[in-house]
Structures are given as C-alpha cells and as structure tokens.
C-alpha cells in the first residue's frame, strides 16, 4: 500500500516533509495547474487536508485550519501573459500582485494596491484584500475577468475569460474572492488593466478633531476633481486624524488644488509623494489586525465612540467605509464589542495572538452564512480545503 507521501511524490511534483513541529506534514511546490490537479487528486484519494499558500503574508488570517496535511505553496506558479492592446493580463497565482504594477514598454498597471507589499495574486483573491484605490477601481473582484481553479477532487474549472465585457455563465471568480482557500485552489487569474496615470498628487488635510472627519471625507469623496482614494490615518486616542486624497491622471496638479479648496480651513497641502503610512497596515506584525466596514459617513463617529476602549490605531479607506484597526491585545474584546454591538458595524479579526482571540468570534455574524455553507458542501463535501478557516466551520 502506497503511503500518502509516496503518492504525492508519485505525481512528479516536488514534495517535501515539513519541518518537525509544523502543522502540515508535507509541503508541495507545483509549477502548473495540471500539477496542482494531480496533487489534489492524490489528496482526495488519501483524505488529506490541503491548505494553499502564496507568499504566506496572510497565512495567519482567519481561524487556524482544523487540520492541514499538505501545504500547497504556489511560488512556482509564475507565468505571465500580457496583452497590451487589450489591456488584460493572464497570470499564475504565485506571482506577487506587485509584479503587475508596471509592464515593460507600456504604461499599464493592475489598479489594485496591496497593503501587505509582498502578497501574491492567489492570496489577494482568497482574502479579497485591497488598498486605497478601491475607491475608484474597486477591489480584486472588480478587476478580475477570468479565473482557473482546481477543486478539492482535482477538477480544473475556468470561468469568465479574457475579455472585460462578458456575462456568459456564473462568475466563479467572484465566488472565490474572499474564500480563504476553502473552495478551491486558484491557479490562474485574468485581470483588466488600466493606463498608468501620468501624474499623481496627494492632498493631505489635518482636521483638528474627529468631529470634523465625516464632513471632510464626504466633501473630498464628492469632489468632481475625482480623487482615486480618500484615506484616513488615526494614531488613536488623544490625537487628531490625517486625511489624504490621491488625484491621478492628466492635470493632476490643477485638480489637486481644487481638492485642497475643500479642506474647509483645516491645514492642507498638496504633495508629490504619498504620506509614509499610505497603503500600509496599522500595528505591528504579529499583533492584532481587524477589518471594519461601516457606512462611510459614520467613520468619524465610530472613531469617537471607540476612543473609550483604549488606544486603537486606525487607518484605511474612509470614503469606502473600509478601515484597518490595530487595538492592543488587551483592548480587543472591548473594541470588538463596541463596534459590533454598540455601533452596528461589521468587524473581522483578521489576525491576533492566540491568547488575545480566546472567546472572540473572529468573523462576527454573517447574514448569508447558511448559503455559504451550502456552497462549501457542494464544492468541498469532505471538508479537506482549509477546513474551519472561515466562519461557521467552513
């Protein structure tokens, strides 16, 4: 009888035993979609739990998987096919998203910011993470036009295609965005690209209080100078927030001046470079990281309300109502309860030290959870893909 390890090795894909003490028993390094499919078939035969991983920048996000026999590293999935005339790119899941920020000889980019810096295409889709320019361009789900995924039983499926305008069939790509590796292993993605803006300007405004925040953000977001992003950075209790808007494209200088006029008397200036905190996560690596979703017009009020919890650093896309928050571990329970129960906002604890998360539901209430569970049951009936990582045992 062949052991699982022999069977995995039998696929011809590089597979190694994991370091002693690590959660997975083996680590595999497939280089093609077909190799991923071969590994998944063997895993199905031997009832192995599989956790896909890209650069590992978000591997600690979500619940720890209930079991993990095989860690499937996507680092060798690195092909890239750029069609500049069509403004699309087809990429393998293991490439860093940052690779798509520029292309040789042509001013095009994937208009998707990665606040983690080194995240891969696959990991970015799986966690639906995005940065400041989500305000204008949306997130990965809005830029993704085609996807190839390997299911738990090794089936290879594609949806969408290589054209932006396409309504044929269900959009599996959307479903996989935010799936945390629990539905399938994304091996390829096709994205629409945008022309790189010839000029960029940042307008920073320093309101004297949180009370002024909502009016200011609303005014900047509604500007017909059309900022691509309106972000906030709040170092926490006792300090004033900083708001920064990005204007990109032709006549950026003139448009930035128009945006600055909306600062309402608060100190404001136009800069050629982004503030240091732009497109970065608050807090320390290894610390607590939460994602908040609120109506954009309630960001200021929310920050005022959570002040009572203790020091919490908050940063993010104020105009889109999506914020990152980094409370110290001891403040986490009070912070979670304040946002969810008192303010009615959505909060997900993405990452936290084990002792800090004890007793806290990371995901919070998810209205469509029963439907999500039914999707999971169809895609991965034996619960072998990142089992338990998402809410409700998914």
């Amino acid at each position, binding site marked *: 009888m062949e052991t699982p390890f022999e069977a995995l090795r039998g696929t011809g894909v590089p597979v190694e035993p994991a370091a002693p003490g690590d959660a997975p028993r083996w680590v595999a390094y497939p280089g093609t979609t077909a190799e991923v499919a071969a590994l998944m078939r063997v895993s199905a035969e031997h009832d192995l739990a599989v956790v896909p991983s890209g650069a590992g920048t978000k591997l600690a996000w979500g619940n720890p998987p209930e079991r993990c026999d095989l860690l499937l590293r996507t680092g060798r999935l690195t092909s890239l096919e750029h069609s500049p005339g069509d403004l699309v790119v087809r990429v393998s899941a293991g490439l860093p998203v940052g690779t798509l920020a520029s292309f040789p000889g042509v001013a095009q980019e994937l208009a998707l910011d990665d606040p983690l810096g080194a995240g891969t295409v696959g990991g970015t889709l799986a966690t639906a993470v995005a940065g400041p320019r989500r305000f204008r361009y949306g997130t990965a789900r809005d830029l993704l036009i085609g996807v190839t995924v390997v299911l738990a039983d090794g089936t290879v499926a594609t949806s969408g295609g290589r054209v932006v305008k396409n309504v044929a069939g269900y959009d599996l790509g959307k*479903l996989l965005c935010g799936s945390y590796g629990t539905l399938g292993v994304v091996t390829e993605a096709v994205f629409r690209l945008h022309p790189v803006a010839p000029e960029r300007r940042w307008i920073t405004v320093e309101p004297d209080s949180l009370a002024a925040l909502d009016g200011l953000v609303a005014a900047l977001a509604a500007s017909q100078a059309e900022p691509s992003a309106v972000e906030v950075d709040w170092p926490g209790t006792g300090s004033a927030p900083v708001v920064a808007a990005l204007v990109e494209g032709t006549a950026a200088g003139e448009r930035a001046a128009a945006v600055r006029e909306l600062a309402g008397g608060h100190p404001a200036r136009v800069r050629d470079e982004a503030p240091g905190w732009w497109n970065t996560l608050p807090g320390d690596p290894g610390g607590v990281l939460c994602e908040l979703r609120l109506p954009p017009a309630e960001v200021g009020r929310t920050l005022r309300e959570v002040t009572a919890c203790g020091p919490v650093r908050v940063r993010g896309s104020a105009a889109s109502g999506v914020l990152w928050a980094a409370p110290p571990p001891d403040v986490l329970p009070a912070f979670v309860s304040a946002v969810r129960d008192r303010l009615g906002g959505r909060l997900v604890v993405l990452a936290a030290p084990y002792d800090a998360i004890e007793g806290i539901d990371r995901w919070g209430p998810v209205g469509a959870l029963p439907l999500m569970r039914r999707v999971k049951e169809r895609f991965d009936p034996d619960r072998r893909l990142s089992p338990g990582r998402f809410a409700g045992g998914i």
Partner: protein
Amino acid sequence: MPDTALDEPVRRFLEILGPGSVITDPVRLRTYECDGLTHHRTSPGVVVLPETAEQVAAIVRVCARHGVPFVARGAGTGLSGGALPRTDGVLVVTSRMRRILSIDLPNRLAVVEPGVTNLAITEAVREQGYYYAPDPSSQQVCSIGGNVAENSGGAHCLKYGFTVNHVLALEIVTPDGDLVELSHTDPGYDLLGAFVGSEGTLGITTKVTVRLTRAPQAVTTLLAAFDDVESGGRAVSAIIGGGILPAAIEMMDALAIEAAEAAVACSYPEGAGAVLIVELDGPSPEVAHQFAEVRRICEENGAFELRVAADPAERAAVWKGRKSAFAAVGRISPAYIVQDGVVPRTALPEVLADIERISGEHGIRVANVFHAGDGNLHPLVLFDDDEPGAAERAELVSGRILDLCVEHGGSITGEHGVGIDKSRYMTKMFSEDDLATMQLVRCAFDPEGLSNPGKVFPTPRLCGEAPGVRRGAHPLVESGQAEQF
C-alpha cells in the same frame, strides 16, 4: 388545457395576494408570453404580481412545496429570453414593486425595489449631482431587478463597469423561499457578485442597494466620420493605446448608418463608411486634454469630418442614431436578429472582415453596431422572413459570428445574457468541467432546480443530495412506502 398541477398553488397565491394580483385568464396571460426576444413565446401557467418581498417569499415557498418552477420578470426587456415563462410554472412579475425606499447621499447609495426602472434612480438624484452609472439602452423602461439578473452594462460600462460593480447589497428570496441579504460588507464568499448576472437561476431579487456615482464635471461627445470601419478601428486602438479611457466609444458601419438615417434622420456625415462616437467625461482639465488627443488621433487616422457636441441637446443629436440603431434596421429589412458577442479589441479588424466574408457567402446582410472600446459586437443580421430558407441562413450566420467570438478568445455574450437563446452555445465556450462546477453553485442555491429552469445551461442536470450532508434514508423509504432507485 390548463395544468391542474397549478390548481392548488393558484389557490394559495389568491390567499397571499388577493384576486387582483393573480392572473389565470389565458388572454391576459398572453401579455407575458415573451420578453424582448420575441421569437420565443410560451404562455405562463399563472402570473403573480406581488407588491412586497414577503409576498414574493410566500409565493416561492408555495412553489417549493409543490415542486412548481418559477420565473422572475421585471419589465420584460431582456434580449436573451431570460424571462421566458413556462406553461407549467409561475411567472413572478415585479412591476408593482417600484418604490425607491431610501436615498442616502452622504453614503452615496440608494435602496430600491426591483421593479424600479434604471433611469428612475438617476432621475431621483440628478438634481443633487449624482446618477446611477450602468445605462443599458433600455434604461427608460428596464427594471433594476432585471439589470441585477442580467448584470446589465450599457454604452458607458467601458469606463464605469457593469451592474455588478454598482450593487452594494441585495435582498433575495432563495429558491426555498427564505429572505436573505447578500451584502458587500459580508466577509467570505462573494455571493453578491455570484448572484448578479445569474439570470434568475439562483433566486429572485426583492431589494437592491445601488451605489450612486457623482456626476462628472465635464462631458464632451465627439462624432467622427471615416471612409471605412478599418480606419475607425485604428483610431479606437490608438485612443486606448494612448492611455485614454473614454466613457464610451461606439462604432456603426455604413449599413447601420443607412438604417439610422432612414429611421430617425440623424444626419450623420454623408458618405461615411463608419462613424465613431467618443464620449469623454471627468474633471474639466482632464477632459479638455483628452479631447484634444482624441481629435488629433481621429484626424491622423483619416476622419474626414468631426462634430463636437458640447451641450446635452447636441449630445442627444449625436447619440440619436446610435441609440435607435437596433430598431432602425427594421426600416431596411423585414426581419433581423440582434447578436451580442465579444472579441478582444485587437481582434476587431480580423473579426469584422470575417463577418463580411460570411455575410457574402450566405447572401445575408449584416449591419454592425458595436461598443468598440471593449470589443462588444452587436451585429444585426438582416433577412426577409418571406423568403424561403432566409431565416435559417440568418440563424446560421448569427451562429457563425458567435463561433468567431469564441475562436478569438472572446465571449458569446457581452451584455444580453445567455437565457434560452444561447444556452446551446455554452459548450463552445466552456468545458464540461467548467459547466459542472458552475452547476455546483446552482445546486447550492437551488437543489430542486425550480428557479428559472432551462436557462443559461445547455442541458438540465439533477443536483442529487448535497454531498457531504450525510442524511439518513428518506422517511418514505424507511417506512416502506416508497423505493428509491
């Protein structure tokens, strides 16, 4: 012959809705026998006209209990037969659910019922400087619920995206009759994104939260006339290649122009082999700069006449011919098929040449109207339905055009949907495994296959029991009253 299987459901509908909202009279049922794809006609078994989400849920629960298929219909403007009813089923018409429930400008959103028309949303917020961006050409009458089902686009989706990019949340009735909210703020699977564009096969939309977009500071529309489609196509490539993302780039060929002239006297430049409509919008300084660029590019690529529309009246005049194009071909042909396919934009010249060749080979004229910026073709296949065999040849040409789209890595539909019209083409674009995987989604939402069955997918499939959910034997089997094969 009325379907007696509907007798009990109809009695229940009358209890839920009252007699004024349940239609069983065969004459009145015929009003609903087709949508915008008029050559497919079927009278529904019964039509219901709910006014609330709870009523829709109650109706669907009755359908689920009795195993009766149901089809949702908005304004019935769809062009792929997505709202084609079934004689053995219920047609749930949302036209009485047309309240705008709330408008929240600080958060740039509106909450509306599914029967609200696309344009009504824009009209409700226009004075405050906002609008709803997706603009299918039927926007004056089409419903937002239908837009959600079809993931509708429009001329301006080149820059602004489709319905799916502008819907923030939905309240849906699942095929078992549960009211569920799908929201962009939910973590986990993007069910909202998967539901939009599912053509009514995953449930019925009862409430839509849409994003409102700030009106642009400046809009400029330019009409450029070229000798032929090739030169117009080169101009399109140069515009996009130059890093400009217009709100819309539309092209019409000589035959489409001829039809539009005959129908609405749009006075496009005489002798044009192709016209290009380019609309730029955004901040004034950006639009001014890009306009100069577009003008230069058109001239360099052989535009022999350029017209600029600077105000809404002039803009309407430029768009008049384009917007009338589909109906206008009725002036130059007794019958026609509206096709909808997509090719990568760089393949446009080759595909247009191929269409011309196929058209010649079969003696069937094809007028081309298309969203050139995103490679979305709308060939209008013209034929005389009195001529024996012409309809078949037109159908053949229309199908060959879709083949071309797939061969060039494009899509069989850019915005009209698959519906009943194109389900047989799905296998040309997708493998068995692709379709089986999509079917997993269908089975998760609708294991009994009651929600708009027979649409989108080429062959009906049974879902079987949800795998992974290990249930005991069916009670009837256990008690010896039934056998399972």
